[in-house]
């Protein structure tokens, strides 16, 4: 039978394999054929694997996820040629579940960026309009799923790297509660924020893949036990309290087309039986971005100290040891990691620590408290995921601050360790708009329920118009 990789959900693919209507290998080959056809234009993949292993539905992994025997670069020249000698826990879980690896997907270097333009290996392109970015940092995974080049994929999210590309590519993306998914074997960016999560076509696919990867891991002491995952069934929202945080929905820079699509989705919540009310996160939006761009770079400057040309990756020799380390880092890192390393080193340096890093950690408490207060009255908070639809390649590449604003609406909940789900909620000028659903810690099942009911009612067609 012919496999329509553009339309087939992972859940349906699973059913086809179970019924013996298509073999796991045939599925893998169908996606490989789609990759051969379309990835030249889209550049979702950095590495393709040679042979499928497993009897399930194939998967793509973002290139920050360590895979034994398969090159893992994190989109950086400094890790070019690095082949892990062990699997990350999520790669091992995916393997145990029988999901064959299609390949490793493109990412901004060290997951630092919102467009994939910071990848040392060139940007990915948005399947809805290849002159535009797919979002980032997990743009490769999101574009691959949207373009039928993978049934589902895993990404990583520090300040929006799963949710924002999912929004820009018109698919589903979950940033799980901090600590529910192991980071063992993941290339670290900012350890108090990094989280691994699924990128899929539907909310049910997302729940199925989250079920595979979630749970405590003895190899990562920051993991916590997650409640068992319920596959969402309900098509109404009766009894659900939906909060609309004013600041997240009225922030400067939200495009009118994005606002309209989100307002329609909020109205739909009411139609489906939810109680909808306004709420407020006054300081989370105003100060979230500043807080993030102090804490994340500070942690990055520490995490990226390991790239010294000694144990793995690039080495550029220049006289003695210190010269070697400095030359290696200057040639191996691209501009964005260098900027963030220096920003972090500055924020942590003597004389500035209290004013910058210490103060940012206190702002983080304020953000968490504001969300906690909102969840006393609401089960889920809704807003746009990204203030804009996919923007043109090059539009923000020379202006780091403009690029940082792409994550204005995803960052606050990340700072508080909260789960967030993106679902597509409509089009603006022919490009997808993403709706962000945020819940209290460990509320993934609520997010799946709300996301699923909305997805059914919205009936968004996730196949990019130009590929239909």
């Amino acid at each position, binding site marked *: 039978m012919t496999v329509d990789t553009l339309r087939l959900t992972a859940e349906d693919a699973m059913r086809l394999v179970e019924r013996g209507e298509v073999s796991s290998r045939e599925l893998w080959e169908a996606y490989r054929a789609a990759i051969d056809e379309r990835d030249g234009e889209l550049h979702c993949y950095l590495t393709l694997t040679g042979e499928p292993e497993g009897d399930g539905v194939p998967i793509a992994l973002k290139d920050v996820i360590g895979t034994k025997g398969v090159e893992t670069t994190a989109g950086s020249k400094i890790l070019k040629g690095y082949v892990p*000698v062990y699997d990350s826990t999520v790669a091992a879980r995916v393997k145990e579940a029988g999901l064959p690896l299609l390949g490793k997907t493109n990412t901004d270097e060290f997951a630092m960026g919102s467009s994939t333009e910071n990848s040392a290996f060139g940007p990915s392109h948005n399947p809805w309009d290849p002159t535009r970015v797919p979002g980032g940092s997990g743009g490769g995974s999101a574009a691959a799923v949207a373009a039928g080049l993978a049934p589902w994929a895993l990404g990583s999210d520090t300040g929006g790297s799963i949710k924002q590309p999912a929004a820009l590519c018109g698919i589903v993306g979950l940033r799980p509660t901090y600590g529910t998914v192991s980071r063992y074997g993941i290339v670290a960016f900012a350890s*108090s924020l990094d989280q691994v999560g699924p990128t899929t076509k539907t909310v049910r696919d997302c729940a199925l893949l989250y079920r595979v990867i979630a749970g405590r891991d003895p190899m990562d002491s920051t993991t916590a036990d997650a409640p068992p995952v319920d596959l969402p069934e309900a098509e109404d929202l009766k009894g659900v309290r939906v909060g609309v945080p004013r600041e997240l929905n009225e922030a400067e820079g939200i495009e009118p087309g994005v606002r309209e699509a989100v307002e329609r989705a909020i109205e739909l919540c009411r139609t489906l039986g939810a109680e909808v009310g306004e709420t407020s996160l006054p300081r989370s939006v105003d100060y979230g971005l500043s807080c993030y*761009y102090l804490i994340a770079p500070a942690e990055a400057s520490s995490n990226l100290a390991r790239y010294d040309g000694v144990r*793995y990756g690039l080495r550029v020799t220049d006289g003695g040891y210190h010269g070697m380390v400095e030359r290696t880092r200057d040639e191996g890192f691209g501009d964005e990691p*260098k900027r963030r390393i220096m920003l972090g080193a500055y924020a942590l*340096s003597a004389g500035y620590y209290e004013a910058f890093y210490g103060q940012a950690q206190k702002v983080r408490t304020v953000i968490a408290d504001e969300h906690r207060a909102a969840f006393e009255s609401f089960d889920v908070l809704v807003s746009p995921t990204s203030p804009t639809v996919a923007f043109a390649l090059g539009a923000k590449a020379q202006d780091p601050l403009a690029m940082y604003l792409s994550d204005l609406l995803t960052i606050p909940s990340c700072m508080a360790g909260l789960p967030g789900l993106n679902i597509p909620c409509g089009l603006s000028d022919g490009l997808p708009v993403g709706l962000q659903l945020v819940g209290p810690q460990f509320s993934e099942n609520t997010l799946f329920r709300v996301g699923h009911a909305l997805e059914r009612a919205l009936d968004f067609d996730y196949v990019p118009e130009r590929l239909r």
Partner: protein
Amino acid sequence: MAITREQVEHVARLAHLALTDEELDRFGEQLGAILEAVGKVSELDLTDVEPTSHPLDLVNVWREDEPQPSLPREEALANAPETEDGFFKVPPAVGPEPDL
């Protein structure tokens, strides 16, 4: 908030980055703009607020103190740019320290 060229050089040295003159100029300008934006956190009076370093309330996660297998030496060295006799090999590290 402007950052001086000396400060940029100092931070680059702290971060072990040998930056070119062009990079020092460019990053100096960009860091100045970013620091001005993120400096916004100082507007808030948070004297009595506790800092958050981690979003979960996990304290002292223990495991049994039992030896576990670790990577064989050849695998641990597999990605190293240079090795000798089962060790990572680096250029001479003695000599003048960089000025921090």
